[in-house]
């Protein structure tokens, strides 16, 4: 695990640098899909934008020796997005089945899922979708 120094400003370790690279890669993935997402669905796009900002700040912070707050917040938010994605989507879908008013729930779940697995899923979908021409 990444460990911050006692002062709260740590010296970046190799683990920090790897984590920073991953956060930066995640930011780039979000930035890659941002123009299309924002053009088509501004609210989803805003979520993607905020995720990109968050990952970029996290990457920079990790690279220069993060404080505890940065490491913990980074782990917490990324873990939340990964772990919460499936249950929220399931609950959202069930809500939709019973009430029209809740129909935005799966869309929010979709946004959360998108933050983490969306880019990968999108690439996979584009490659495997046989009935969509030109993809």
């Amino acid at each position, binding site marked *: 695990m990444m460990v911050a120094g006692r002062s709260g400003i740590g010296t970046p370790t190799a683990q920090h640098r790897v984590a920073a690279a991953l956060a930066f890669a995640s930011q780039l993935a979000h930035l890659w899909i941002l123009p299309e997402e924002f053009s088509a669905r501004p609210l989803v796009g805003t979520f993607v934008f905020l995720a990109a900002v968050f990952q970029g700040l996290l990457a920079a912070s990790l690279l220069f020796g993060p404080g505890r707050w940065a490491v913990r917040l980074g782990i917490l938010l990324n873990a939340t997005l990964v772990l919460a994605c499936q249950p929220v989507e399931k609950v959202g879908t069930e809500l939709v089945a019973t009430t029209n008013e809740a129909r935005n729930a799966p869309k929010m779940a979709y946004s959360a899922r998108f933050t983490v697995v969306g880019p990968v899923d999108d690439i996979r979908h584009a490659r495997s979708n046989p009935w969509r*021409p030109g993809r």
Partner: protein
Amino acid sequence: MRISRRKYLELGAMLGVGLALPMGTLSVPVSRLAASASVVSPPVERFTVPLPVPPVLEPVRREEGIDYYEITQRVSNQEILPGLKTEVWGYEGIFPGPTIEARRRRKVVVRQINELPVPVAVHLHGGIMPPESDGYPTDLVAPANGAHDSSTVGAHGSSMHTDDGHEGAANARDYAYPNDQPAATLWYHDHRMDFTGPQVYRGLAGLYLLRDEVEDDLHLPRGEREVPLVIQDRTFEEDGSFYYPSLDPSLMGEHGTLATAINGVFGDTILVNGAPWPYLEVSNTRYRFRMLNGSNARFYDLALDPPPPGGKPLVQVGSDVGLLDKPLAHNRLLGSPAERFDVVVDFSRYEVGQEVTLKNLEGEGRTKEVMRFVINRKEKEESAVPEELASELEVPDPNDAEVTRRFQFIAGGAWGGMSTINFKVFDPERVDARPRLGATEIWDLHADQDHPIHLHLAHFRVVSRNGGPPAPYDVGLKDTVLMRAGDDVRIAARFDGYRGKYVFHCHNLEHEDMMMMANFEVV
């Protein structure tokens, strides 16, 4: 307080990577959306262009019981706005496409040759035909330039072979239409999966008039007094090109529109038969207008201004798929995309020299007016509107219904994107209803916002609207029903003709492209 060089670097990196980079990336779609919202067509002086009438296509050959046509879909330049050239994708390179005139029980085979840069599919809207000729969204005709993976052509299970044994070239396909249905105003248009909206917008639509003896015997206005009116709205860029807010204007990548058009593309210029706000000189006699709302998303509430003394100038004699049993006079006619109204207007109720404007009571600004009629001469009346039209019209009876199904049409929005039927996006492999061949079914439809709902193959009548009687514009045998936000509409549909897989969908073409479509399979 002294800030170290390292801290400066850290702050710089955080500002640059964390904020400037995302902000810079965000500026691209933000400016694209802003530009999209501000496109306004070049000004056009209204009622200065004469109404063009699409040419009637001649068959390439006739055999016993069958007429053969060939249509090449190609790119061309057409003067739509005076003094400017517009690139259109047209059937035979014209917009709207040529009209096909067919006779009941005389088969038509249309060879569609694709010289466009994209795949196409052609749907005869309102036609009863076998599934392989229905223009299923994934039954594609590949483009001539080979830019399309040929493995997806015929994905619906069909091949390039046709009933009469013709084999199409790689970029051609034969569509066979039995025409075993009453006279009606049908139309053909593109139906490519995910891209119907932009491809119709660029010009891929034309009329298909089916005639029969019943109609012949009615002595409705004919010849020059039978005029098709294909009403569409478009927005143009300064150079005269169509403006359609595609995410990917090449139409070969991501489908869908910019968020500014998520609920439909609405143009600011009204075209009739491809001309902006045209005029038509008429005599003081009856005229029959076959009106098609060929717009992607716009509803029209049509009325004549001024109305003639006594009112109700729009005498409807037919609807989507055939003549009415008796004429019905209206002051106004509300129509959603893909609906047709077959209407007779008696200009003898006006004075010679008068000008009458066809207005769109739902329009705003430039879209309030559609076209103008100029009554400029006296002529002898030779037509009639009989009290009885198609008295043997076979409309589905809800009392015969075997099954009742319910479908909810829910549009996507800024949050999520895709539009759904019963909360499911279109999946070509999923079948949501299996009506029996020849069966009548009741379908209860619910719309969350404005949706024109179209069933392929099946014709239906509107049984009720929001628990009450159908609206005046619901009359007759239909293939598309107008639904306003929150509407509950009950229809009785008959699944006649052929077994196989067909689609039903919202005919707001942007909703359709965003997956508001589903399959039914006639078994």
